[in-house]
């Protein structure tokens, strides 16, 4: 049985199938063209398109000649079509349904390929979904690509979307390469030059550093707080020595008071000849101990400082004279420096210069205190700083002071210590 012998409904059905195949193939062609760079996938749809086109033409032609209107389109068409109409029905079926199957498979395959491979669109979507702004343009400003974030930045800064790369670059240039948007976001702008297929592309990237900037600011604040704390801690450290010593002295005084009180009570008991009164010897010992403390000077070591300087010099055979006011008891650091310096000066004077007289001059002004040691001994040829002098220098420099040794016209050790806002150890924070 040939095609022309089939039922009219069946014949119409074949025609419909061909038409559907045609539609599917054409859609496939369009999709492949627009999606993939490599166009080889296009051949199958093109094939099925032609096939279905041909079959449809044939079937419709047959419909036409069965009707009363008969037009000869062309001799070639007629020849092909008449041949096809007379082919066995099975062949006609094959020529109709096989292309359909192929086109459907091809369509599904294309769809899968689109979904699983990186297409041009997926690249573009990827760029647009980045948190970083990207702008690519040619010299002169022609835009090749600007992603979503970059467009947002452009609108925020200039009021409109980017149209010229060079212009936007100018709008984005700041001294530290950071731009701040209206909503407070901070972006770091970087420039790159790319080479794509041998041609130069300018690239501008905008990285979101909002959180980083905020964290840095907080870190700075914490560091400042930490430094302020450390300063207070150092200050405390310095003061605590004084407080501890004072506390110890107070404790001792309290002890003495108690001992005195006890001695009085026990003596009273003894005088009253109480049963449990202590022996006279015990009482005597107790009183002896107590009376040691009967003279407690109000200012500890106040006058001993100068006395001991004289005595120490005398022990080394040096007659010391002091000209000026010694630093008061509360300037502990300055006293320490003076003691250490006096020691060095006395040793050097007696051992190296064979001096027997030494002079200490003290001058204090509002912002510094100056000690000058000089002696009547031999003038040293060269001044070498041994261990003692160099550790003295370190001590002085730790306290922001200066130390100077001169040999001409006579040997002098000059030390200058700056005084901090009022008295040392109590400076305003």
């Amino acid at each position, binding site marked *: 049985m040939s095609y022309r012998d089939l039922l009219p409904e069946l014949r119409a059905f074949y025609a419909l199938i061909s038409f559907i195949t045609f539609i599917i193939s054409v859609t496939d062609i369009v999709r492949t063209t627009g999606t993939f760079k490599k166009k080889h996938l296009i051949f199958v749809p093109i094939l099925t398109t032609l096939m279905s086109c041909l079959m449809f033409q044939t079937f419709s032609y047959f419909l036409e000649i069965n009707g009363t209107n008969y037009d000869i389109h062309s001799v070639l068409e007629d020849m092909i079509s008449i041949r096809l109409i007379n082919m066995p029905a099975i062949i006609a079926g094959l020529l109709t349904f096989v292309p359909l199957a192929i086109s459907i498979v091809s369509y599904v395959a294309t769809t899968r390929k689109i979904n699983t491979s990186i297409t041009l669109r997926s690249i573009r979507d990827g760029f647009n979904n980045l948190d970083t702004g990207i702008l690519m343009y040619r010299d002169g400003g022609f835009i090749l690509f600007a992603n979503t974030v970059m467009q947002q930045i452009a609108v925020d800064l200039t009021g409109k979307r980017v149209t010229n790369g060079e212009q936007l670059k100018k709008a984005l240039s700041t001294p530290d390469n950071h731009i701040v948007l209206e909503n407070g976001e901070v972006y770091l702008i970087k420039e790159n030059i790319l080479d794509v297929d041998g041609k130069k592309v300018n690239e501008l990237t905008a990285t979101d550093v909002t959180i980083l900037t905020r964290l840095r600011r907080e870190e700075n604040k914490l560091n400042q707080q*930490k*430094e302020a*704390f*450390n*300063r*207070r*801690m*150092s*200050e*405390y*450290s310095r003061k*605590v*020595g*004084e407080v*501890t*010593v004072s506390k*110890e*002295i107070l404790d*001792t*005084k309290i002890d*003495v008071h108690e001992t005195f009180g006890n001695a009085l009570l026990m003596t009273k008991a003894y005088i009253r000849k109480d049963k449990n009164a202590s022996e006279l010897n015990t009482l005597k010992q107790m009183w002896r*101990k107590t009376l*040691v*403390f009967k003279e*407690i*000077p109000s200012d*500890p*070591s106040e006058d*001993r*400082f100068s006395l*001991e*300087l004289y*005595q*120490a*010099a005398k*022990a*080394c055979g040096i007659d010391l004279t002091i000209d000026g006011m010694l630093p008061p008891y509360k300037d*502990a*650091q300055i*006293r*320490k420096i003076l*003691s*250490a310096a*006096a*020691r060095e000066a*006395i*040793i050097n004077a007696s051992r190296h210069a064979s001096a027997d007289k030494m002079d200490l001059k003290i001058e204090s002004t509002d912002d510094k205190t100056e000690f000058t040691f000089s002696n009547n001994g031999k003038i040293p040829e060269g001044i070498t700083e041994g261990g003692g002098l160099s550790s003295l220098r370190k001590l002085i420099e730790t306290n922001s002071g200066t130390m100077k040794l001169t040999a001409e016209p006579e040997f002098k050790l000059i030390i200058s210590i700056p005084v901090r806002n009022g008295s040392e150890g109590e400076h305003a924070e």
Partner: protein
Amino acid sequence: MPNNEDHISRIMIVEDQQLVRMYLEDEVRRAPDLELKHSITNADLADLYCRNEDVDLILMDVYTEYGASGLEASARIKKAYPNIKIIIITSMPEFSWLERAREYKVDSFVYKELNDGSLVDVIRRTIKGESIYPVDTPEVIIGDCSSKDLSYRELEVLREITTGDSNEEIASRMHLSVSTIKTHITNLMQKTGFRSRTELAIKARESGLVIK
């Protein structure tokens, strides 16, 4: 105790607290075999007083107003006049002083509290050549723990933080990494139960366990 000394030992006292010095002077004066040669407050000048070598033994306080110069003075004196005996007296349990005293060859070391009336005894024994050291530093309670529970390193770090210096400065001084320092501080706070570094530093310093 009968005293068999046939000569009188000359004593120098170096102590800057008036009351303690007066007590020590009294102890020395009442002993018939001891003579008080010098009694001074300034440890920095101590070695100058020894120039004429008219001193046999020094009672040296470690901690004076402006720092532990007693130890430095002892080191100097021991080097220049090795025959002069030195007894270090202190009331502060600062743990590293014992070690340094030994290093400088200080003859004896006594804690003021643990010594009641037997000071003259220690002086006599030291002059005879005995070296008397406490077995260990006295135990100090800080917060929830005792000083005995802290390791040597932890005590060192504890001393450093009382200066108020930053972790970086402390680390470079001790030749350790900053993270090691932080670990030690965390352990210290855990052991003592103190809630802040400040509290830790202040309590440690007040106890006298660590003094910089």
